[in-house]
């Protein structure tokens, strides 16, 4: 397997996915299974499950895993760099433009419209996560405890995640 082919395939996947990791899965499936035949459907599904369970962005995780399965550590590196590369270039371009024009009146007005939109998108993300994550009373109690820890006690999110994991082991 040519490592360069892996890089370009994942760069293409990274470039055409808008809206985060989950939007990447169908595109990845098409490229990996249908077009190139690098993995079977079953192998791919297992990889996605692991990518969701491990820390970090789902897209990066699945790229690393698929790359490793196909061409070892070199493949993992090529796929990971490939999937991140388009984001990196596009964001640098956007950041340069934004930092240059952010004080322009028209740009300020546009960002005043974007800010409430982001609030709503993050709230919507919380609600869509609820369906898979808040399935019983124990989960509800953990969620309430986390909100208390976050706002009343100002506990660091990393510590909250660790404590929630410990609580999960005790309660489930």
């Amino acid at each position, binding site marked *: 397997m040519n490592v360069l082919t892996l890089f370009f395939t994942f760069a293409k996947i*990274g470039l*055409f*996915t*808008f*809206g*985060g*990791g989950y939007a*990447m899965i169908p595109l990845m499936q098409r490229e990996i299974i249908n077009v190139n035949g690098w993995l079977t459907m079953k192998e791919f599904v297992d990889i996605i499950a*692991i990518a969701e*369970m491990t*820390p*970090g*962005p*789902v897209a*990066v995780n699945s790229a*690393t*895993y698929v790359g490793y399965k196909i061409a070892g550590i070199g493949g*993992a590196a090529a796929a990971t760099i490939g999937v*991140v590369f388009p*984001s*990196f270039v*596009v*964001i640098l371009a*956007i*950041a340069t433009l*934004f*930092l240059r024009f*952010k004080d*322009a*009146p028209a740009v300020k*007005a*546009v960002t*005043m*419209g974007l*800010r*409430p*939109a982001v*609030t709503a*998108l993050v709230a*919507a*993300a919380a*609600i*869509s*996560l609820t369906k898979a*994550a808040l399935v019983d009373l*124990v*989960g509800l109690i953990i*969620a309430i405890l986390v*909100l208390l820890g*976050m706002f009343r006690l100002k506990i660091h*999110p*990393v510590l909250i995640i*660790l404590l*929630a*994991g*410990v609580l*999960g*082991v005790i*309660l*489930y």
Partner: protein
Amino acid sequence: MRLLLQMFFVFFRIGAFTFGGGYAMVPLIQREVVDVRAWTTSEEFIDMLSLAQTAPGPIAVNTSVFVGYRKAGFPGAVAAVVGTTLPSFLVILAIAVFFTQIRKSHIAEAAFAGVRPAVVALVAGAAYKIGRVAIIDLRGLIIGAMVFLAVVVLDVHPIPVILASGVLGYFLFRRDYVVGPQGPATCDQPSGLGERASDVQDADQVPTFSPGHDY
């Protein structure tokens, strides 16, 4: 160099402790970048977050590149993106080698069952924190409510929604910034490059319409 190392380790920690993809990273990035390190203001962080979502790729990666670039230029962007992705890379490689053992672990399953509701609460908390800064008047509330309905009820893709709210923002808020003949406030000293000065004046005269100036 010290800043770059610090940036690498901050994003490494963020990458290592976020489960469940991009949005789960938002509360952590917000905490580290705005509250702890003060690398950027709340308002600017929200702007970066919204622009990060209009670009392709994972939201967490995009946001970290943006923050890194804003604070420390191109080297900062590299430090941030390597920091965010390296934990994933190492953990996945480790799992790829020991795949079968991990999969059957009941302890890992129980721990994840506990982490998932925590992530929901963290993301909901982030939405609240962002909203306190982002929604400051009725116009913002209307945009927020429309986006929420479009995404949650009508299942519209985020990209057209973000573009539409940018356009809507331009038409609803431009009078706050562009002082023209029909502007909301009289500008006594019209100066060529003085949008900033005239903004402050507007803010003084129309206190309820002073977005972006409560830093």
